[in-house]
């Protein structure tokens, strides 16, 4: 009985790993098929474009994953990105010689501020995250629009050093992508190895039990929202560096792509399980689909349908795995005497 149970447990743990492996496999398959169809899909320039294309989504997905793991959601990330990107442009218009570090600090700081607003409303006013961030989605975007007042900032207005950051590579990897990789590794390390990181999972797994075991639930959720805001701010600076041309509509609607990436990446929408690595893989998969479908000469209309099907498949897989794990782990049924 015990020996058998141990085997079952191993199997169950294998099923957990399957989620991330599955996405990685789908990604490899997609790249392989596309490359066979058109070998240029993997040449140096195209590789670089793929990585750059995924960068912003990965940064946002990491922040979103932390939030979703605590059984919350942040719908305002697109607006925060827009605000931060526009602020970066404005900063360089006002101070053309500003160091890049200052732009990064300003973007992250602005995002953090927005995240703090979200977190405070959720933790103190006890309004569900879905409602709060739906509201701030419009509020932040509205601020962005009224600040921009129809103005567009052009790439020509940006200092060349900043623009170079958007195109430079280091050992074949774009500098912007390095930011995303650093963010991913730090977040992954924190969630795996730190008490407060594990408490995020505990909160998402069972908020009531988390309160009973003395976890500062409100504070942790606040932190998660603040981090998500700060990462959206960082994504805004990266956006400015990559595209150069900025108006108030930057990042409009990206929040749903981010949530999709997180869900496809195996982070349970009701919290408690999944990893930032999975979410990042989900983001890479979604943005790669976006690049691969035109190469495969598939109607762009289908891109949306494919993303939708992937989300449904991910959720279906999630339900099936949960049911299967529960079934496997149920050593014996608890019955009254």
């Amino acid at each position, binding site marked *: 009985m*015990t020996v058998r*149970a*141990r085997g079952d*447990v191993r199997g*169950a*743990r294998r099923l957990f790993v399957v989620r991330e492996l599955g996405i990685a496999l789908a990604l490899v398959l997609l790249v392989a098929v596309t490359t066979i169809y058109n070998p240029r899909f993997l040449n140096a320039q195209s590789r670089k474009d793929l990585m750059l294309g995924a960068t912003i989504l990965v940064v946002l997905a990491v922040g979103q994953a932390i939030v979703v793991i605590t059984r919350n959601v942040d719908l305002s990330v697109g607006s925060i990105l827009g605000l931060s990107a526009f602020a970066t442009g404005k900063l360089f218009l006002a101070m053309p010689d500003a160091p890049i570090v200052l732009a990064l600090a300003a973007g992250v700081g602005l995002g953090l501020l927005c995240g703090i607003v979200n977190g405070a409303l959720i933790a103190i006013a006890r309004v569900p995250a879905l409602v709060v961030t739906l509201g701030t989605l419009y509020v932040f975007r509205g601020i962005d629009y009224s600040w921009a007042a129809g103005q567009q900032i052009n790439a020509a207005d940006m200092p060349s050093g900043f623009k170079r950051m958007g195109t430079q590579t280091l050992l074949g990897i774009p500098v912007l992508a390095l930011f995303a990789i650093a963010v991913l590794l730090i977040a992954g390390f924190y969630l795996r*190895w*730190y*008490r407060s990181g*594990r*408490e995020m*999972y*505990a909160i*998402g*797994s*069972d908020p*009531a*039990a*988390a*309160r*009973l*075991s*003395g*976890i500062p639930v409100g504070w942790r959720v606040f932190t998660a929202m603040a981090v998500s805001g700060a990462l959206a701010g960082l994504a805004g600076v990266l956006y400015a560096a990559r595209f150069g041309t900025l108006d108030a509509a930057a990042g409009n609607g990206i929040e749903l792509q981010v949530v999709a990436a997180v869900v496809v990446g195996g982070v*349970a929408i009701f919290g*408690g*399980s999944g990893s930032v690595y999975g979410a990042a893989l989900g983001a890479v998969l979604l943005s790669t689909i976006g690049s691969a479908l035109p190469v495969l000469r598939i109607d762009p209309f289908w891109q949306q349908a494919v993303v939708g099907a992937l989300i449904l498949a991910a959720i279906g897989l999630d339900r099936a795995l949960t049911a299967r*794990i*529960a*079934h*496997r*782990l*149920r*050593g*014996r*049924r*608890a*019955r*009254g*005497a």
Partner: protein
Amino acid sequence: MPERAEHPAPLLTLSGVGKSFGAVHALVDGQLELCAGEVHALVGENGAGKSTLVKVLAGVHTPDAGVMALAGEPVSFSGPADARAAGIAVIYQEPTLFPDLSVAENIFMGRQPLRSLRRIDSAAMRRRTVELFARLGVRMDPDRPARGLSIADQQLVEIAKALSFEARVLVMDEPTAALSGVEVERLFAVVRSLREAGAAVLFISHRFDEVFALCERVTVMRDGRWVSTDPTAEVSVGLVVRRMVGREISQLYPKQETTAGDTVLQVRGLTRLGVFDGVSFEVRAGEIVALAGLVGAGRSEVVRAVFGVDRYDSGEVLVGGKRIPRGKPAAAMAAGIALVPEDRRQQGLVMELSIERNATLTRRWSLSRLGLLGPRIEREDAYKWTQRLQVKAGHLADPVSTLSGGNQQKVVLAKWLSTEPKVLIVDEPTRGIDVGTKAEVHRLMSQLAGEGVAVLMVSSELPEVLGMADRVLVMHEGRLVEEIARDRADEESVMLAATGQKAGPA
């Protein structure tokens, strides 16, 4: 047989502890004295205040009055973390684990052993988990997720958690309710070894055989108050039960004598796996039948299944000899069943809607003209029923949430009585309402039975059961264990059946 040890100074004392929620006095005078190396039983009826007392110990509730002292020092907790830091571990009836996390993480959540850079030392955590399980004499993989663990195993994880922070006081709220015989034995062995190690254990249970086998002293509570504390060797089951119920049946219950007519509701072999099993009974016209039992015995689940809110796996429900389809409340209503649910705020009323709309919600189709529900029809009809039930309300258009609990309950009753049911099922009809309104609700039920309605009442209040019912059906752990006629029903016979004891001389 528990041996009596000398307990010089109590480790934990509560005196005069009170806790109210609004107008409900859940705990009035909680008293407790726990000694190191002692297993102490806490018994009482449903609603006697045991769970509130546990939550005070756990730091979940801050008491309004009274003193709690640990090793002679007065303490006050501002949250569960404080209680844990003071060495008090609580194992709830439903263990509170994180299903997605591993067993080891569940044990050490928030207190994981650390290594350099304040990282979690997962190897040490796993090793210590294995050590804890070895001390408890169980084998469990520390890396498996908590999801899917049996209740017994979940409790062992909770006990391991208590061991891991060297808890001096271990509180167990009905730990054996969901365990099988073997699992209970294993749990007892663990509890005894904790006692040997010098821990104070508070053991809450409805099973007297366990209380007397395991515990050295027993404290009885009733109506939020301490009643007695005695060594188990010096009291009998019968005496403890009498102290638990301890009240005279007041003459508050205006039960009219009625003659029962034809059988209206028949329930045959109703089973829902793991919840209730083979429940069969009938209710005749003009009869009030009470479904008694302890919380968690499956009473509410049975009536919910009868009404079709929940599904059942096998068995059948018949009204007037006609079988009604399972899982369809609309069909049950059409057949003439009405269910006044247990929790009126969550299930009985739509709190934001007006009184009149709530009162007419069950008949929104039959009251409408040309498919439209005019405000006048609604108001006139609601007026008729609220007058009849003497609902005290300022204005019928006010939200129902502005009413007092008793008046809210009357609106729920109005809503269902207006459907002119043949079978009225009431689940805890008078919970949390004041004495005056209680009597009105009782009078109403009696009057309805007099008019030929078959009434099925779920109640945890023994005086209400004994005062109102023509017959008492007692459930214990999902089974109907006893049927007691009105003239034979008394507090002891019902309580003994509900706790799974054989009825008879105690």
